[in-house]
């Protein structure tokens, strides 16, 4: 979860200064800030549980590519504004029910992080869903562009819900909700918004998975090269 927040937060921060209107520049930066904040909280907690003395920065900046477990969706490049919005929408629609359920986690710290993140995610979801509808039902050009973004990104959406042994164990211990249930809620929201946006789910149902297992797309390496640049070039220093 921390990796999802970090990588998507990083991607959104690339927009800073380049947004289509000033208000959107501010909105995307805001969402980026929230995600980086979530990543910080989650990494701090992960480091504590791990117990090897790694802090949030070591976890965020000093792992190898394979060790990042973010979904393939969040590492995809920004593309045009429509691509960024569609990526955000597919992600927010997953994060919203997830955080909602995690507020009832058996782990008090996770529940607390979820509580705070849920407030932010509600705003993110509203923002991205409204833009999907606006672009889908806007002009001919915007419709075509956002439909193309959906066509390209749809194949990565199932990767959000890939389960593994850790996920199964977390579900059994009541730390995490059932990921299948989250997927059900995601589908309901996504289908409803896409319909309002007059967009169609692509026919091609082939799925690209692997992010949760550390098997990424070619894009992540470049993102990490930039993200990790200072920590790698100037090791063991304080900033």
């Amino acid at each position, binding site marked *: 979860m921390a990796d999802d927040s970090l990588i998507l937060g990083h991607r959104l921060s690339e927009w800073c200064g*380049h947004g*289509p209107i000033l208000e959107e520049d501010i909105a995307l930066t805001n969402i980026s800030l929230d995600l980086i904040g979530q990543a910080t909280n989650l990494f701090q907690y992960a480091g504590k549980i791990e117990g090897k003395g790694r802090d949030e920065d070591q976890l965020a900046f000093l792992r190898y590519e394979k060790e990042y477990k973010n979904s393939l969706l969040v590492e995809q490049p920004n593309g045009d504004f429509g691509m960024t919005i569609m990526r955000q929408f597919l992600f927010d629609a997953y994060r919203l029910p997830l955080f909602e359920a995690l507020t009832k986690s058996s782990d008090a710290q996770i529940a607390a992080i979820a509580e705070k993140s849920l407030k932010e995610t509600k705003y993110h979801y509203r923002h991205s869903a409204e833009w999907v509808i606006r672009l889908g039902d806007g002009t001919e050009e915007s419709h075509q562009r956002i439909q193309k973004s959906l066509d390209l990104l749809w194949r990565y959406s199932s990767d959000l819900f890939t389960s593994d042994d850790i996920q199964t164990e977390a579900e059994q211990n009541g730390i995490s909700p059932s990921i299948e249930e989250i997927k059900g809620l995601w589908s309901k929201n996504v289908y409803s918004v896409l319909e309002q946006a007059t967009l169609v789910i692509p026919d091609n149902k082939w799925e690209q998975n692997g992010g949760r297992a550390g098997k990424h797309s070619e894009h992540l390496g470049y993102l990490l090269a*930039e993200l990790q640049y200072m920590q790698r070039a100037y090791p063991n220093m304080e900033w």
Partner: protein
Amino acid sequence: MEKAQDILELERRFQEKIDNDIRIEPNDWMPDAYRKTLIRQISQHAHSEIVGMLPEGNWITRAPNLRRKAVLLAKVQDEAGHGLYLYSACETLGADREETIDDLHSGKAKYSSIFNYPTLSWADMGAIGWLVDGAAIMNQVPLCRCSYGPYARAMVRVCKEESFHQRQGFEIISKLAQGSPEQKEMAQDALNRFWWPSLMMFGPSDDDSPNSAQSMKWKIKRNSNDELRQLFVDVTVPQAEMIGLKIPDNDLKWNEATQHYEFGEIDWTEFWEVVKGNGPCNYERVETRRKAKENGEWVRAAAVAYAEKKKNKELAVEA
């Protein structure tokens, strides 16, 4: 004849208000030249905030840790916010936001030349906060008492945030100055590159600043360029000493009699060349903003079309 006399009377009353420190508000009568001067100054200021996002934006994706990344993002976001208030302040004077922005893209409107210098290392984030925001505060604090109400009020809020920016910059550079030899060198190098351009931020020297006298009379400007520059030097030199960095000026010395620092001659040729467009990044900065607008054209068109459709649907339901 009577009309000319009316105008004289309006001008007299206008100046009387200014002399009595009564704020001018958007619906009040004001001389055309006052309006034009304000539009020019506020829009330049707005453009500086927006273009100023780019040199720092250049390091957001390479910030060295999560905390620095978040703080830098928040800072650059504040600048976008300042740009928004300032464009709004401009609109109260009858200037259209889109046209104002187009003037930036066509090269007609200027912005602070400091943003035409590149950011080459992480230490530049420190130098910009410390020096550039520091200089901006010196320029902007007097503007909180500017005669034009909306501008003065926008400046109150902007100054609060700028002072936070200045502190975060100083914190970055101090940390580096106390760090490893590589970090210290990085900090000194940033100071070397940003010192002189920061002094240039106060504009030409008073002998060479044609608009200043009128702006002072209208209380748009409260202090001269050279006064503010001197204040900046006096405040900043001890800060550099405190963190063990050397100001790149061999003529710099304390004058006990005047209680001010004396400093070397500014390279005014460089200043005017950068103003004319020959700085290291003039082309890149404007081109980036122009592209952002161009690439966002379809998004703005979609937002307008959707709002229109929605309005029509609502009207149809009402009918």
